[in-house]
C-alpha cells in the first residue's frame, strides 16, 4: 500500500532556498529557552539553530527536555525566558495555531488528527476551500487526492481517517503539515510506530522536503535513523544543551556519550550463558494454548530464573501470545498448568491471583492512569490483588513507592507527581514497579524498552537481568533483537500468528532470529 514515494509537488508560494545560504543564514534561531514546571527545571537556557534545507536530529534521554523544547517552540507551553527568530524575524507563537501561521508545523508521535473526520477534511481542516462560506467538498477531495499522490498514497480520501492504518494516518499528518507551506517541520518521533519499509517512505519524503529548503527537526530514538538521514545533531541532557555538531563530526560513540554522560558498555555486552544460573522449577506450562483466528496453538514452558523472549514482526502474534498467557484474551484450546496445578485462565484477575504480572505494550492506553500520582500507579496492582476491602495503609503505600522510586531510579523522585507528567522511560519504570510490588512469580513484559531512550534501555535491561537472577520467570516481547539476545535464555520466533522456531542456549543470536523471521514461504513473504 506504501510504494516508495515519488517527489511531492512543491508547496505553493514557497521558493527553494539556495545552498549557499545554508551556512550563514539560519532559518530558525532559538536563544536561551528556559522553562520550569513547579520547581522542576525542564529547560535551562537552551540554544538551537536550524538552517534551511537541513534535517536536524534532536536527541536526548527521557526527561532531557526534547518535548519541552518542541512545545515551547510551538507555543503549546509558554516559555519562561528566551527568544526565537524565524528567518530573521522575532516570533513568539502562543499556540499551535499561531506557530502554524508563522510557518512552524509539528507532527507528533501519536497521530494528532481527528479520527472520525474524512482524510480530506483532516488534510484541510480549518483551511478548506470554500465558496460563499460553504466547503467545496469535491474540490477539497480532488486536492487531497493530488496531495497524497505526491506522497505515494492512493486512497479514498472521503473515508474516515480511522479506517486506515497508523502508517497512513502518519503520512496524512505530514502531508497536512507540509502543505501548510511550513518552513519548519518538526517531526516528534514519527517513526516509532512505523515498520522498516514505511520508515523508508518517510525518509524519501523528508529528503524531498529538505531539497525544497524546508528545515526539519527530527526527534527519534533510533540512532541508525539519525545517521541515515540527518545533517546535524543537537543533544539535550537534563534540560541543558549537551552539544551540537554536524553529523560528520559526531561519531556514534561520542553521541551516546553526550546523551548519557557516561559509558554504555555493560548493557550492550553479550550475556554469558555460563554465568546464568540453572533454570529453576517450572512456573507455568502451557500446552496447545491457542485461539482460532488469533494465534495458532503453541507450547510454552516458563521456568523460575529463566527469560523467554518472543520475537517477530509487528502483528506476528507476539502480543497475542502474551495476552492469552495472561488471560486477557480467553483461549479456545489448550491447557495451562501453574506450579503443577491445572488451571483455566479466563481473565487477568485470575492470572494475577496465580502470581502473574503483565506490562502491556500500549503504555499510555493500557498501562498508566495518567491523572493518578506515581505512588497511586505503583500500588494499583497490589491493591487490586488484595481487594477493595483490604485497603493498603497510606504509610505502607508511601514505603512501597519510596522503595521502588529509589530502586528503579524514577525521576523526578516525587511520589505525589501525576504520572502523566513523567517521561516515557520513567512511566515505564513506574509500571514495572507496579507489578514488582505484587511480587509476581511470572512477569510478562511487552516491549519494555519501546519509545524510551538508550540510557533507560540499559537500566531496564539490567532490571530484567536482576529479576531473573532473583528467581522470577520472565516472558519478554521485544523488537530490539540486539537487546533481547543479551538477556533471553530462550527465544521463540513468531510468524503469521504462529510460533515457528525455538532457539535456546548458544543458538540465541540475532542472525538466527532474523533468519527465522525471514524464512517465510513464498506466498507469505510479500505479506511479511
Amino acid at each position, binding site marked *: 500500500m506504501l510504494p516508495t514515494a515519488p517527489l511531492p509537488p512543491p508547496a505553493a508560494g514557497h521558493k527553494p532556498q539556495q545552498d549557499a545560504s545554508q551556512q550563514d543564514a539560519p532559518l530558525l534561531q532559538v536563544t536561551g529557552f528556559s522553562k520550569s514546571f513547579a520547581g522542576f527545571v525542564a529547560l535551562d537556557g537552551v540554544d538551537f539553530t536550524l538552517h534551511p534545507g537541513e534535517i536536524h536530529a534532536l536527541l536526548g534521554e527521557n526527561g532531557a527536555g526534547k518535548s519541552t523544547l518542541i512545545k515551547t517552540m510551538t507555543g503549546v507551553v509558554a516559555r519562561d525566558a528566551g527568544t526565537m527568530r524565524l528567518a530573521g524575524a522575532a516570533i513568539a507563537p502562543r499556540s499551535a495555531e499561531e506557530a502554524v501561521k508563522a510557518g512552524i508545523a509539528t507532527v507528533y508521535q501519536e*497521530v494528532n488528527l481527528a479520527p472520525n473526520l474524512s482524510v480530506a477534511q483532516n488534510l484541510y481542516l480549518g483551511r*478548506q476551500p470554500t465558496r460563499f*462560506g460553504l466547503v467545496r467538498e469535491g474540490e477539497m477531495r480532488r486536492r487531497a487526492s493530488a496531495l497524497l499522490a505526491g506522497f505515494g498514497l492512493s486512497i479514498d480520501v472521503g473515508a474516515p481517517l480511522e479506517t486506515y492504518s497508523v502508517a497512513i494516518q502518519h503520512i496524512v499528518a505530514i502531508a497536512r503539515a507540509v502543505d501548510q507551506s511550513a518552513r519548519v517541520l518538526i517531526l516528534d518521533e514519527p517513526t516509532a510506530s512505523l515498520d522498516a519499509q514505511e520508515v523508508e517512505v518517510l525518509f524519501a519524503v523528508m529528503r524531498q522536503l529538505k531539497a525544497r529548503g524546508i528545515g526539519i527537526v527530527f526527534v527519534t530514538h533510533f540512532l541508525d535513523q539519525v545517521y541515515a538521514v540527518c545533517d546535524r545533531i543537537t543533544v539535550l541532557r537534563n534540560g541543558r544543551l549537551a552539544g551540537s555538531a554536524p553529523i560528520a563530526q559526531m561519531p556514534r560513540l561520542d553521541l551516546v556519550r553526550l546523551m548519557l554522560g557516561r559509558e554504555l558498555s555493560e548493557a550492550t555486552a553479550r550475556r554469558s550463558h555460563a554465568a546464568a544460573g540453572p533454570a529453576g522449577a517450572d512456573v507455568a506450562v502451557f500446552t496447545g494454548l491457542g485461539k482460532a483466528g488469533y494465534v495458532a496453538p503453541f507450547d510454552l514452558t516458563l521456568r523460575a530464573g529463566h527469560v523467554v523472549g518472543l520475537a517477530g514482526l509487528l502483528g506476528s502474534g507476539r502480543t497475542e501470545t502474551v495476552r492469552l498467557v495472561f488471560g486477557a484474551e480467553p483461549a479456545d484450546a489448550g491447557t495451562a498448568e501453574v506450579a503443577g496445578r491445572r488451571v483455566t485462565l479466563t481473565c487477568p484477575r485470575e492470572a494475577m491471583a496465580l502470581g502473574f504480572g503483565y506490562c502491556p505494550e500500549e503504555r499510555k492506553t493500557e498501562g498508566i492512569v495518567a491523572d493518578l500520582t506515581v505512588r497511586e500507579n505503583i500500588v494499583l496492582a497490589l491493591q487490586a490483588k488484595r481487594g477493595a476491602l483490604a485497603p493498603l495503609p497510606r504509610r505502607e503505600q508511601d514505603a512501597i513507592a519510596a522503595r521502588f522510586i529509589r530502586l528503579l531510579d524514577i525521576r523526578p523522585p516525587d511520589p505525589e507527581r501525576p504520572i502523566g507528567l513523567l517521561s516515557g522511560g520513567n512511566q515505564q519504570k513506574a509500571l514495572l514497579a507496579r507489578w514488582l510490588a505484587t511480587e509476581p512469580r511470572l512477569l510478562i513484559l511487552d516491549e519494555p524498552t519501546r519509545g524510551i531512550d538508550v540510557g533507560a534501555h540499559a537500566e531496564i535491561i539490567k532490571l530484567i537481568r536482576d529479576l531473573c537472577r532473583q528467581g522470577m520467570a520472565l516472558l519478554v516481547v521485544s523488537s530490539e533483537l540486539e537487546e533481547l539476545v543479551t538477556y533471553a535464555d530462550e527465544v521463540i520466533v513468531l510468524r503469521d500468528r504462529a510460533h515457528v522456531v525455538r532457539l535456546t542456549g548458544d543458538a540465541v543470536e540475532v542472525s538466527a532470529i532474523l533468519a527465522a523471521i525471514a524464512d517465510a514461504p513464498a506466498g507469505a513473504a510479500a505479506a511479511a
Partner: protein
Amino acid sequence: MRSLARLTPVLATTAVFLAGFVLCSLAYPNFASLRVVMNLLTDNAFLGIVAVGMTFVIISGGIDLSVGSVIGFTTVFLALAIERWGVPPLIAFVLVLVLCAGFGAAMGAIIQYAELPPFIVTLAGMFLARGVSFLLSTESLPITADLYTHLSDHALRLGGGARLTVPAIVMLAVVIGGMVLLHLTRFGANVYALGGSRAATGLMGINVARSTVLIYTLSSALAGLSGIVFSLYTSSGYSLSAVGVELDAIAAVVIGGTLLSGGYGFVFGSFIGVLIQGLIQTYISFDGTLSSWWAKIATGLLLFAFIAFQQLTLHLARRSRRAPAGVRP
C-alpha cells in the same frame, strides 16, 4: 462504501419513523393525512429547534442541560417585555435572542477557560435560568399582542385542513440551516473534529476556544428561538414551561443516531428523532384511552433500543476494522 457506513444509524431511525407512521395509519385510517403530518411539525417545532442546537453540542463532545430553562426564561421575559414593559414584540425577540446567546457564550467560555465539564456548567446554567424566570414572575402571563394573533393565524394552507404554521416553518428553516452549517461549513467540520479529538483539534491549529464558545452560543440562541416559538404556540409566558425539554432533546439526538460521546451524528437524524417522539404522542392522543405517560415509556424503550443498536454497529465496525490491520502489506 466506507463513507456510507456512518449513515446506518440515520437510515435506521428514518426506517423506524416510517414504519411507525405506517403502523399508526393502519390502526387509524385518519392518521395518514397531510394534516396530521403538519400538526406533528407544529406541535414539536420548539423541540426540533433545540434538538438542532443540541446536536452540535453533543457531536462536539459536550452536553447542554440548560436549554429547557432557557426556553422557560424566554417565554417569561417575552410576556413581561411585551405586556408589562411595552416593548414592541420584534424588538423583544431580538433582545431575548441576544440575552440567550450571551448566556450560552458565557457557559462556553467557562467550559473552555475554567476547564470544567460541560455537564456541570450547563447544569448550573439550568438552575440559573430557571431561577431567574421564577424571579421575574411565577404566574402564567398571557401574551395578547397583535403580532402574536397575527403570527398564529398566519399559515400556509395546504388543503384538507393542513396548515404549515409559522412555528413549523421556523423549525424547518432551522433544521435546514443546521444541516448546512454542520455538514457544509468549516465551523461544522471543527465541531466534528472537536468530538473526535479535542487535543488533536487544537494541535491542528484550530481555535478550540472560539469553536467551543460558538457551539454553546448557538445552542442557547436556538433555545431562545425555541422559546419564542413556544410562546407563539401557547400565547403565554410561564416560568414552569418546558421543564425537562433538555432531556427530550437529548433523547431525540441520540435516537437520531448521534453518539453521546461525540464525533458522529447528523442534524437530520435529530429531526427524525423529534418526529418519532411526536409520533408516539400523536398515537396516544388518537387512541384516547392511553395515559400520556405511555409516551415517556415508549421513548425510554426506544432510547434503549437505539443505544443497544449503536453499540452493536460500533462493535461490528471495530471488528471488521481490526481484522485487516494485522496483515498490513
